[in-house]
């Protein structure tokens, strides 16, 4: 088992090109650091931005297309009229 598997891996994989070591050495000497993990968060950040945009625009549309302030109903006018008449009666007496 071990020998067969080892042979299979040996036959189907190769050593790296010598330039790989040179490239790594050059990067080490140049003081290059590994890529920051930020790019891995980029899709998440993009998704969050889209979500916020959709929520924000939805809120804006809802708030500007809503029925608005309630229109004063007739009862309010009647109420004002009753109050006015009561004041007139009080002034007469």
């Amino acid at each position, binding site marked *: *088992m*071990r020998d*067969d*598997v*080892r*042979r*299979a*891996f*040996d*036959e*189907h*994989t*190769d*050593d*790296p*090109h010598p330039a*790989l*070591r040179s*490239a*790594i*050495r050059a*990067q*080490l*000497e140049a003081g*290059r*650091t*590994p*890529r920051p993990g930020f790019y*891995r968060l980029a*899709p998440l950040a993009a998704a969050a931005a889209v979500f916020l945009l959709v929520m924000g625009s939805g809120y804006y549309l809802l708030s500007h297309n809503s029925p608005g302030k309630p229109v004063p109903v007739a009862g309010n006018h009647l109420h004002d009229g009753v109050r006015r008449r009561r004041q007139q009666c009080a002034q007469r007496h």
Partner: protein
Amino acid sequence: MAVLSVEDGTVRDALAGDAAAFDALLAPQLGPAFRLATVMLRDRTEAEDVVQEAALKAWSRLRQFRGDRRSFGPWFLSVVASECRMARRRPWWSVVRTPDPPEAAGRSTEDLAVGRLDLWRAIDALDADDRLALFAYYYLDLPLEEAARVLGVPLGTAKSRIYRAARRLRPGLALEEAIDR
């Protein structure tokens, strides 16, 4: 395969920030690391990129390395394996993925019980972590503890993963035959 053979003091110098010492420490590991990455990613170009990135990461994290020169190899290979997993998880727009081999589709475990000629096909049809388990244990000839370190799993999990992968190649395989030392 010898995993590591470096001169005394190289680890100490590398830990002290000597890039040349780290390069010397790294050199014997590049072959196994590149083969490991090729096994996991099935793509030579991407494997080279991953090994480069893993080398820089290992250099930047070298202070976290606790061990002697013997354990540097498995430690670095675990960094490479981790980079390979991340490369496989990268979004579709940044990685050209090779499809799984067509032989894997619709084949039962019994169908994968193959002779030597088809052994590679059977290995290639395994998932990346199972291929890594076989590679670390059988090809790199790592002891079980170090294979577990490369796999990034506890010892028992590594043992069962190796056994499971080996059984997919040879269904009737006994545990003692798969984990032979």
